[in-house]
Structures are given as C-alpha cells and as structure tokens.
C-alpha cells in the first residue's frame, strides 16, 4: 500500500530538554490518523516539523515520498494544514485570505473559494476583516484554507478547538466525507479522545515526546471498551518509567 506520510527517527529537543525523540510512523493513503497525547507531549512540535516550520535535529519526514528537508516544495505541494492556532492576516477579509492561499494553485478560482467558505459556513462573513472574527470563525476559516486546493493530505492540529458542538459534528462529517470521496489522508491531533474515536481509523499515542502506541481503531476497540481506556492503559504503562 502507498504511504502518504512516513516519519523516520524524528527527534527535536528544546533547550528545556523537552521535545520529541525517535518518532517512527507510517500513514497510508486515505487513512484518518488520530494523534493523541496530553498537553506538552510534543504533538504540535511533531506537526511543525512535518510541515517545515521547524527543523528537526535528526530524522526525516516523507510526504508522498518526498523528503520535507530536501524536497520541501514537492512534499508540501498537496498538503493543507492548520498548525496551532489559525492566524489569518487580521487586516484582510476572509475572502482575501483565501485568495492569498489560492494563488499558488491554478485550479483555485472564485467559485472554489466560495465553495470552501460555504462548506465551513462562513460565506456570510467573507468580506469582513479577520480582526472582527471569533476564535471559532477563525478555526473555520483555517479549515476552509486547508481544503481549498483539494489537497491529498490534510494535517490538522487541534481542529476542534473553539468550535461549538454543531461545528464539531460538521467537522467530523466533513473529514469523513473528504476521506471517502477523495481518498484524502488526514493527520489529526487532538486531546479530545471521543472525537478521535468517532473520526479516525488509526490512532497513535504520544507521551513525553515518545510514540508509545500505534494501532487501528478497529483493533483497539476489539481489546478495550473504549479508546479512552486504551489511552489510559498506554499512558499508565509508560508513566512508570
């Protein structure tokens, strides 16, 4: 099976001795991967390295077979992402922000931008400046940007942040829909175990900068009553060291 994302021996340490160590992970095309872990485990760091915002100390990430270090442009060509908070340019409108994004792809036009804003239900506010947006609206805009160019891989860091219940449900549906329709690969980090359980078909648990368990949701639910139990047992196991 084709690999969408391959993470090899990835390490990145901060000065305070926190960070990630020796992460190895493979994600197949079309999978929805859930990246679980407590706050400060290194989820965002991993994802920042994956999209080139940070340089790894060691190891490499390959996206669609292209190394993020040596072949950044090809690796990122079909990737959409939200990392940490969504920070659109505050002095531009939602539409203008989308335009900036779309300028890199020929196939993106006015209609496609409106379509994405429609999907994320912020089309009403498309001509408002971002500085007037709420957190949830910014999050929706971030998702609209991430899906704008119909990328094959979407990396989302805490996508449910700031969304209302309705928004969360819609988001789940959107992810599943894209995955089924376009075979889009998702890499989603979250601390909301319930949402991950409902959305993802593969789960990885990051604890103290180390990847402590990777398995398919199907397998996990065979052995544990819920994903939460699996998570707690994995964390417990590793906390002893």
């Amino acid at each position, binding site marked *: 099976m084709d690999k969408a994302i391959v993470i090899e021996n990835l390490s990145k340490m901060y000065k305070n001795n926190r960070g990630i160590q020796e992460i190895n992970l493979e994600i197949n095309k079309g999978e929805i991967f859930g990246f679980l872990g407590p706050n400060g485990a290194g989820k965002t760091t991993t994802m*920042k390295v994956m*999209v*080139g*915002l*940070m*340089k790894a100390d060691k190891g490499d990430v390959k996206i669609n077979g292209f190394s993020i270090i040596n072949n*950044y*442009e090809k690796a*990122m*060509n079909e*990737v959409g*992402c939200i*990392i*940490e*908070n969504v*920070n*659109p*340019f*505050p*002095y*531009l409108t939602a539409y*203008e*922000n989308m*335009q*900036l*994004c779309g*300028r*890199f792809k020929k196939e993106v036009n006015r209609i496609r931008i409106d379509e994405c804003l429609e999907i994320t239900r912020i089309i009403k506010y498309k001509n408002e400046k971002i500085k007037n947006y709420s957190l949830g609206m910014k999050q929706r805009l971030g998702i609209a*940007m991430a899906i704008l160019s119909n990328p094959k891989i979407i990396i989302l860091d805490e996508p449910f942040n700031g969304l209302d219940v309705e928004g969360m449900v819609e988001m789940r549906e959107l992810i599943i829909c894209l995955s089924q329709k376009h075979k889009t690969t998702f890499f989603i980090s979250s601390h909301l175990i319930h949402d991950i359980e409902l959305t993802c078909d593969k789960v990885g648990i990051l604890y103290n900068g180390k990847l402590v368990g990777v398995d398919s949701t199907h397998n996990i639910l065979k052995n544990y009553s819920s994903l939460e139990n699996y998570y707690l047992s994995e964390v417990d196991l590793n906390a002893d060291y």
Partner: protein
Amino acid sequence: MQIIKSVFINEIFKISKKKKITAALIFSMLSVIIAAIVEYSLNNFAGIRVTGNSEFSILILTILIYSLLPLFTTFICVDMFAGEFADHTIKFTLTGPASRAKVFLGKILAIATFIICNLIVVMIFSIVASLFLNSNLPNFFKILVSYFMAFLPIFIFALAAVLISNITRGPTSAFMLSIFVFLVFIGLNLVFPQIRSFLFTSFFDWFRLILGNYINYSKILRIFLILLGYGIMFCAAGYYLFEKKDI
C-alpha cells in the same frame, strides 16, 4: 518561477492593503507640497530661490532620502518579517508550497517594488510641483537617473532592516534597532569622515555624482561595488537566519 511570482503577488497584495502604506504615500506627497510651499514663499518674500533651475525634484529627493524614504521602508521590512513572526501570520506563508528561499526572495522583491513605487510617486509629484514653481522645463533625464540611482542605497538599507527583523524578537525592537543603526552610521560618517567609504549611509546621495558636467565614473563604480557588497552580505545573512528560524 510561478511560485515566486505567487509569493510576490501575495506580498504586494498584503502591502497594498495596509493603512501604513496609504499613510506613507500621503506623507510623501505632503512633504513634496510643503517643500514646494516653502520654496515658493522663500522666493516671494526673501527673493531667494533655494533650488536653482529645474532642481526641485532633486532637492526633494535629497531631503526624503535621509528621512521619509528609509523610514517607510523600515516600516515595510519590519512588518513583513518581525511583524509576521510576532503575530504568527508567517506560518500561513511558510506552510504553503513555497520553500523558504522563495518566500524570502518574494518578500525582498515586494520590498524593492514598494521602494520603486514610493520613488516614482515622489518623482512624479515633485516634477508636477516644479512645473508650477519654475517656468523652465526640468531636466527629465537627470531627474530620472537620480531617482533610479537613489533606489540602490535605500534597498540596501531595506536589506539591513530585513536582517535586523530576523535577529530581534519583536517588531518594535526591530524598528528601533533599524533606526538606531541608521543614525549611528550617519553619526559615524560625520565624526570619522575617514571611514566614510565603509559606511553605506555615506552614499545615500550618490546620485549627485551624475548631476555635474564631470562624471566620475570610477567613483560611481566603486560606490556601486561597495553597495553591492553590502547588499550580498545583508541578503545572505538575512536569508540564513530566515531559513533556520523555528516558528
């Protein structure tokens, strides 16, 4: 190439949407108008023509090149680097399909474009004003060449501001430090004239060299090489820091 073009258009688009830019252009125009009024009244009340024939545009350039032009340029450079680092909007550009080298290049090109636009606005306005002030037609060729030459030192200063924006933590300190460096260089030039060849600020008004009957080409070439050296140095250092920066 397509990617650099997209980055460049995005940066220009962003610049054009900023209020600071409108303010910068309005201030440039205002300063031209104020200078024209001063010139007019000095001649009317004291009988003194501060500029000779056709020199109004050059006078404006001489004044602005040490004041508003570097100031506005610093605004843009700081906003485009330190400002975007500080409010994390840079993530947006960096996670796009453009490598950092291309993002850096696109931004630098956008800054260059801004400087050129600012110079063109000042030039056109000052030529129009000079038509009202003097009956004689200005020497368009010399004005054009002067404004063209003025671009280089301002651009070098912009690269210095970009480098500084990649060193400091916030936009305010980047701005202050850029202005400080500018003033220190100007001060050094006054206090130690013997090292003036080593300071790029000594050459802000190097366009004067082409205004006379005798044109010292070898001096112009030397200044060009000095500025070029500064440019390559600032560019390389700025890019190095930009490339290895963790967001």
